[in-house]
């Protein structure tokens, strides 16, 4: 019999510690599928940010390096500069990449480091228990915005994919979601493309994945899925904001 869907090979252990309905699991799967399909198991090297995804190495059978919170893209720069033959990707949450790691993220993007970023935007600090993130929506109640996020005090939700797309060094900047089958298949394609572009030395490839965090949103998985569709996507539109067609030579 032929598999319609089977566990990706590189996913050595699918017993995720994630909460029920958490999209981190889905994203792990998609990354694993991309690695399988491009045969990158040996060459892939994960640089893992601190957040609920920090145990990625327990699940994916790829060489893995833990980066200090927020510094994934500085760490990845160090790796890729000395091991350009490895396919380097970071796996980072929105707190990690867009808050504390903003400088490292913008500068790695601007330098056009030839690495791939999997950016899990769930509008919250998952691992630490539901504090406000730079991506938290206006009005959203979190443990540190108990009266709802208010732009005068807390600022606006940051749209990273759009902001990074303005930088010359960026080869691909896209936002995807995994909340419906259609979006999920799109996400799969884009993630694969990001890795392909890295293989082609195109430069910095960035995929933002809108994700749910039922636990810290205080919602059932179903409600969380709906929230992605009905509240997140309208504010964080899906799409490819930049795609370089030719390698980065001037």
């Amino acid at each position, binding site marked *: 019999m032929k598999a319609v869907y089977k566990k990706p090979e590189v996913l050595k252990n699918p017993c995720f*510690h994630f*909460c029920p309905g958490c999209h981190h699991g889905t994203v792990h799967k998609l990354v694993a599928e991309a690695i399988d399909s491009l045969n990158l198991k040996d060459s892939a090297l994960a640089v893992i940010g601190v957040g609920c995804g920090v145990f990625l190495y327990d699940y994916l059978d790829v060489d893995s390096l833990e980066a200090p919170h927020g510094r994934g893209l500085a760490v990845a720069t160090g790796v890729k500069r000395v091991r350009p033959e490895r396919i380097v990707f970071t796996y980072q949450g929105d707190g990690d990449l867009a808050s504390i790691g903003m400088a490292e993220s913008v500068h790695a993007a601007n330098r056009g480091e030839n690495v791939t970023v999997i950016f899990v935007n769930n509008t919250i600090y998952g*691992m630490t228990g539901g504090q406000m993130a730079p991506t938290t929506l206006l009005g959203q109640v979190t443990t540190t915005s108990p009266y709802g996020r208010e732009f005068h005090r807390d600022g606006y939700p940051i749209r990273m994919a759009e902001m990074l797309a303005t930088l010359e060094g960026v080869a691909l900047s896209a936002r995807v979601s995994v909340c419906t089958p259609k979006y999920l298949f799109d996400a799969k394609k884009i993630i694969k493309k990001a890795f392909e572009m890295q293989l082609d030395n195109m430069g910095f490839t960035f995929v933002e994945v809108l994700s749910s965090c039922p636990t810290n949103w205080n919602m059932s998985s179903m409600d969380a899925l709906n929230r992605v569709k009905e509240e997140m996507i309208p504010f964080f539109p899906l799409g490819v904001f930049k795609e370089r067609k030719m390698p980065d030579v001037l």
Partner: protein
Amino acid sequence: MSSKKSFYIDLVFSGFGGQGILIAGNLLCYSALLDGREVTFFPSYGVEMRGGAANCYVVISDRQIGSPIPSHPEIGMIMSLPALKRFENVIRSGGYLVINSDIISPEEVEREDVNKIFINANSISKDVVGNDRLANMVMLGYIAKRFSVVKKDSLISAIKEVVSEKHKKMIPLNEKAILAGYNLKLT
């Protein structure tokens, strides 16, 4: 601190989130405070919480309390299988595992050198309050009495400290469940 002559008791409460584990622990604390005792409460936290586990330690004494995390508590109130697996080996030898037998079947317990007490707490809760949500209170009531942890009056008066304003009308039901446990005779 096994060799204390003065009053000292340490417990661990464990189960899933949503089973009222922390509420039970806290209620015991407030009761003991009403009894005029020293009390510490220590909840689990952090990464390990993913997956919905909840647990807490309670220490009650009439002297200043050292570590709020006893390495080998005397009594464990166990409300889920993972909870059993995690704390079975932590209870002090000669101590007590008080287990919700509506969730965990007796044969799951492996240890021989501790006392095992099984309470069909969900069923009892259903009986006395109409649903199984107050199994925690049933178990707590039993523990309070069985090990002379706190006075009955204190237990009842403390309920209002742990039930939030908007669930105020739940106080009588909690009281019922606690008393059901308190008065429980196991054979």
